[in-house]
């Protein structure tokens, strides 16, 4: 009975091993979704993380400054009926193009100005940061100077104390 069970475990294992080898997708193996969306919690970011984030976001914004549709934006992946669909869509685009552009031109201009403003603010931030760094260096040098002065003062006071002691020791004995 025991041996049967052991053999059965091994048989089932081999069977599953084979099936497992054929599956590439992890989701299929665990029978569930494994990925989830995560929101960027920018307020918790460190300075370095924020820098990377800002760089990425600016690049994303710059890539979608112009929302106006062009001919290339209409395409289809369908092999047979794709061509007529594309034809009609492009026709519609041509017919409504004037009005669409009228609305979106202003939006494009706004996007462009916003992207430029963002860029300028980032540059300004960099300048402020550099100025802060220079001030930090100056403060640091002053602090070090203070430490040295403090130590010198300590030594001076202790040598003064020593001198006082020496003078007291050298006092002539009181006259009778």
């Amino acid at each position: 009975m025991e041996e049967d069970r052991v053999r059965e475990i091994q048989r089932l294992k081999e069977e599953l091993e084979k099936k497992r080898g054929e599956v590439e997708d992890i989701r299929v193996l665990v029978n569930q979704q494994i990925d989830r969306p995560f929101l960027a919690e920018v307020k918790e970011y460190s300075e370095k993380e924020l820098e990377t984030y800002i760089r990425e976001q600016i690049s994303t914004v710059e890539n979608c400054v112009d929302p106006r549709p062009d001919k290339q934006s209409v395409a289809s992946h369908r092999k047979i009926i794709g061509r007529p669909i594309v034809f009609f869509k492009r026709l519609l685009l041509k017919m409504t193009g004037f009005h669409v552009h009228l609305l979106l031109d202003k939006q494009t201009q706004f996007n462009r100005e916003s992207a430029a403003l963002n860029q300028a603010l980032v540059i300004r931030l960099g300048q402020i940061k550099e100025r802060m760094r220079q001030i930090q260096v100056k403060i640091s040098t002053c602090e070090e100077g203070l430490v040295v002065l403090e130590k010198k003062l300590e030594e001076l006071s202790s040598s003064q104390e020593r001198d006082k002691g020496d003078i007291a020791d050298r006092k002539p004995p009181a006259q009778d």
Partner: protein
Amino acid sequence: MPPMSKENGSKKDLAGEISAISAQLGLQAAYNRLLRAEVAFKLRKPSLAIYDHAFHFIGGAQKYGLTLIAALRDRFDITILANKEVSHQDFLSWYNLDLAGCRVKVIKLPYFEERRAFHLDPALIPGEAENPFHIISKESGRYDIFVNNSMNEMVYPLSNISVLICHFPERRPRSYFYADRYSYLIYNSRYTALWVEKKWKILPHQHIYPPVDMEAADGGVPKRKAILSVARFEPEGTKRQLEMIEVFLRLNQKWPGLVKGWSFILAGGSGPDNPYLAKLEKIIRGHPGQNIELKVNLPVEELKLLYQQSTLFWHLCGLDHEDPSETEHFGMTTVEAMQNRLVPLVYDGGGLPEIVDHGMNGFRVSSKAELLKYTMTLLGDQALIERLGASAQKKAQIYTRAKFEARVRDFFDDVLKTYVSGRETRPFE
């Protein structure tokens, strides 16, 4: 879900049970069930695989993982999973670890192979790209226990028991984030734990300090007037060697009498063509006769001797850095110094406050001025050096390899007990 008991059920029941699990929870859960049954019935030794995408080069985190399996060799059938060629001989020469009996399995990742990358950096994988670590995820499902030692939370664990060793949470949760899918999360310092909670919003389970074994075999080497710094020469300068040189130069300039006879030695590893190292060399050349020495890529024996001979230890990694990833997450070299009775003067941030108790076994500083101040205090007080050095050596006993191995065995013994008993070990089993 309890494991299949010896008593209940027939062959038919077993096949039915496995088939039901497979339909409900997936093929992997069914397979895991059989793996668990094999161990519960003592048909074989439990298997454990440890993975690190950086096993092919020398590093502190890798030493942690490999020392961990060295402690578990007699309990598990162990496989070391690497992404590039590496051998037992490498582990022996890099970490003095004899891992004979542990299998080394190299699984190359096509994504990085195509790019001929030596450093497999998960942070460089764009969100829209397919996860190149899924090959490792799949492999993880072949073992009872899978240990991910690589700070790489992009590996989805499929084993019955999975352990993520976090040396520091580098990335924030984004695409392919699976750190919370592991059964256990081990962390190397309280500082790391704090950031795991902050960045990943999960509570880590087990604190195991890294193993540090730099203790001198005998205490016969006399100390000399030397301040030592041991840190990699990072091209970005995050270890702050430049700032320490500036402090030593200032000491020489303002207090020559006090520093007379003292030298400052900067030891550490570096890759070729390191602009930061070149900058330091230039500064030192520009200040001849100031007793500053650079010791790059020293063999371990020479480094040990340096530790034994030196008196004070400086470490400013983290100074003026706001980003937590640029501070010391633990501080192995500080502990190494303390084991050799050096008095540590370290930056008051990252994992270092856990190691150095201010005024008791060293000093913690938050600026160059403070480093200057406490160094001057020590240079003028030999008795204080002796007292703090002895106290530092005592504190460093917490981090020995023997203590590390004992903690590791305790933890994995408990894990194994849970596994065999049939209690819940991971979410989808």
